[in-house]
């Protein structure tokens, strides 16, 4: 993508509170889209660039949410809670990675799913710590540099700043030698091994990057909602974020952002008008997989270039042969 286009896009986004018609409600939706987009961008490092589909990512996202909620509810300073949430989630990501990277492909998917379910089960059950089904509620957002984030617009800009930083970090990572090597492990794992790369370590580091993004997104999700509940840890949440990545376009930078906007648009906007929006979401998702297997962003770009063209050979990784 052209740097100019990116700059223009970000500028339009930054000016969003000025032109959105619906006032604070629309601004809040935009903040949520950015939070989920960061979560999806992180997962895309695994799904798109490493070819590893994780169905347990909500375990990391929700864990960050819970750590922050628990600490803030206990009266810890916001900045300590934030650092702890991200730090502990990175540790949990490392544990997830060590266990899940025992396999690739479907086996990786199954292990991550299982790990996610275990974290969910613990949150549901360990009531004294997590509040069980009721979760943990707080009523304070942080106030960095003395600026209160309680209203929609300041929160939007805080989220926007986080979003830009995370977008930059992910961009930097996928274009770094490590990111290139990660794609290598997706397409040619054996050859990468033969070339002397430590395939396991590269994937491990990719997992940590993904976990870091999930942690940051989870932290902001907590700031936004001011609560943590088992629902954020559920398989549904994990499936939703995978859906965002695949629907938008794996292994692209813009794809997960578009995917996040699509899914939240269905959940929060379309659901106000259409009773059976779940059915519609499922149908859209199935249609994307069938007719635009590379995802909306690359798919629409293809159509724009050559209308009526057949889908290009799908990108390896997300949809291609499972690396073995």
């Amino acid at each position, binding site marked *: 993508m052209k740097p100019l286009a990116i700059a223009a896009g970000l500028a339009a986004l930054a000016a969003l509170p000025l032109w959105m018609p619906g006032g604070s*409600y629309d601004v809040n939706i935009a903040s949520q889209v950015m939070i989920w987009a960061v979560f999806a961008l992180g997962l895309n490092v695994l799904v798109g660039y490493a070819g590893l589909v994780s169905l347990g990512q909500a375990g990391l996202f929700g864990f960050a949410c819970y750590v922050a909620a628990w600490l803030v509810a206990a009266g810890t300073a916001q900045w300590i809670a934030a650092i702890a949430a991200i730090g502990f989630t990175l540790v949990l990501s490392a544990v997830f990675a060590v266990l899940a990277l025992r396999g690739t492909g479907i086996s990786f998917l199954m292990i991550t799913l299982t790990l996610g379910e275990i974290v969910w089960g613990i949150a*549901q059950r360990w009531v004294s710590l997590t509040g069980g*089904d009721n979760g943990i*509620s707080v009523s304070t957002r942080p106030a960095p540099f003395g600026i209160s984030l309680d209203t929609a617009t300041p929160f939007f800009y805080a989220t926007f700043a986080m979003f830009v930083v995370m977008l930059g970090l992910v961009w930097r990572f996928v274009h770094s030698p490590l990111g290139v090597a990660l794609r290598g492990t997706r397409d040619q794992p054996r050859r990468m091994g033969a070339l002397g790369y430590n395939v396991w370590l590269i994937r491990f580091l990719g997992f940590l990057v993904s976990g870091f993004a999930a942690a940051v997104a989870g932290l902001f999700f907590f700031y936004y*909602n001011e609560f943590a509940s088992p629902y954020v840890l559920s398989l549904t949440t994990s499936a939703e974020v995978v859906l965002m990545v695949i629907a938008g376009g794996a292994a692209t930078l813009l794809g997960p952002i578009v995917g996040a906007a699509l899914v939240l648009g269905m959940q929060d906007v379309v659901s106000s008008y*259409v009773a059976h929006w*779940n059915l519609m979401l499922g149908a859209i998702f199935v249609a994307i997989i069938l007719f635009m297997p590379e995802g909306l962003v690359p798919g629409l770009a293809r159509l724009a270039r050559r209308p009526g063209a057949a889908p290009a050979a799908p990108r390896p990784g997300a949809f291609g042969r499972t690396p073995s």
Partner: protein
Amino acid sequence: MRITRRKALQSVVGAGIGASLGPLARPALAANKPIRIGLLTVLTGPLAEGGIQIRAGTELFLKQRNHTLAGRKVELIIQDTGGNPAGAKTKAQELVERDHVDMIFGPYAAFELLAINSYLIQHKMPTLSLAAADDLTSRTPNPYLVRASATSSQAMYPLADYAARELKVKTVDTIADDFAFGYEEVGGFQQVFDDDGGTIRKKLWSPLHTPDYTPYIAQIGAVDGVVIGLAGSNPVKFLQQYASLGMAGKHKLLGGETAADDALLKSFGDEAVGFISACPYSASYDGTQNKDFVAAYTKQTGAVPGLNAATFYLNGMVTEAALHATGGKTDDRAALVKAMRATSFKDSIRGPFHFDRFGNVVGNVFMRRIDKSGSGLVNTIIKVYPNVSQFWTFDVKKYLATPNYTRNGTPAKLAQNAAGAE
């Protein structure tokens, strides 16, 4: 597909808002602008059935009043939370910040209400909810909450009293969903049952999603009764499995407000006959208002109303009475909530009721027994406990100073005579 919002807007007669305008329609600033009620309910996912009943109860009330309360038109905006706390938050924001509703009906589940509770307080939003979390009208009260149904433990006090004093049940095992609603139901039962000389031998907690209750049923021992604190479709599954294990008739079955809801009767089989439950509403209550309500609801939906539908019909009644008191004004939110909490009914679909200073209902709790009637089942009322408060007969100060019921703890002694001892 149903287009809920559009349908809602179409129902506004002469309000000058065409359906085609959809969400862009902004409330007119004219003095006679309609009152906006936002309904937070669940229309998708496993909790949908209860949410659909909530919608039906609300719609029936407004239809009967021709969408006019205290001389003002009423617009109902229906939102589906998906049974997800984050969804509840987003939808609450939409109702408050975009639709500028005057009050919220709902949400359904306790975890949803807890997720938006501080937001609602912050926006001073009058909220008429069914969610039963005890603390929200006691230890950590929401000053804008009005609850016409009951707290989780409220109906369990009379149930325990009835079990111990009238059924002469001495020992029970309990089985309840392993979450806050279950803890509060069982805690409430234990509180009174212990005082009345009863003993809970074993508390069983089953996860919300339990396909097979046999491992729990097998642990039910030689006790007089079994207290069932299950919600949703779980009571149906539990009773079917309980009966199939040859247990039918071995214990008195005692249930909370969700375990034998009137709306569940069509799902139960004959094994449910004899099941005794306590509920703040009963379709078989023979007050005139209730007979009319049941007839109209059955005509509209083809089903018997249960607690979900009834509570939102009651919410409508409370709102109407409060609006008459404020002269139709809704701008002063604190005054509106005060008026709602000050309402008092000599009769209603659940008989007489009023609110305590926390906005929680004080009214009838019905003891019902499931009987066979023709081809189906009915809840026969066997005793009515009038004027039941969330504090039962306890010393309120002492109650507020005592922590909420927990999964494993034994409730602290609360009876009034004990209060004086300290």
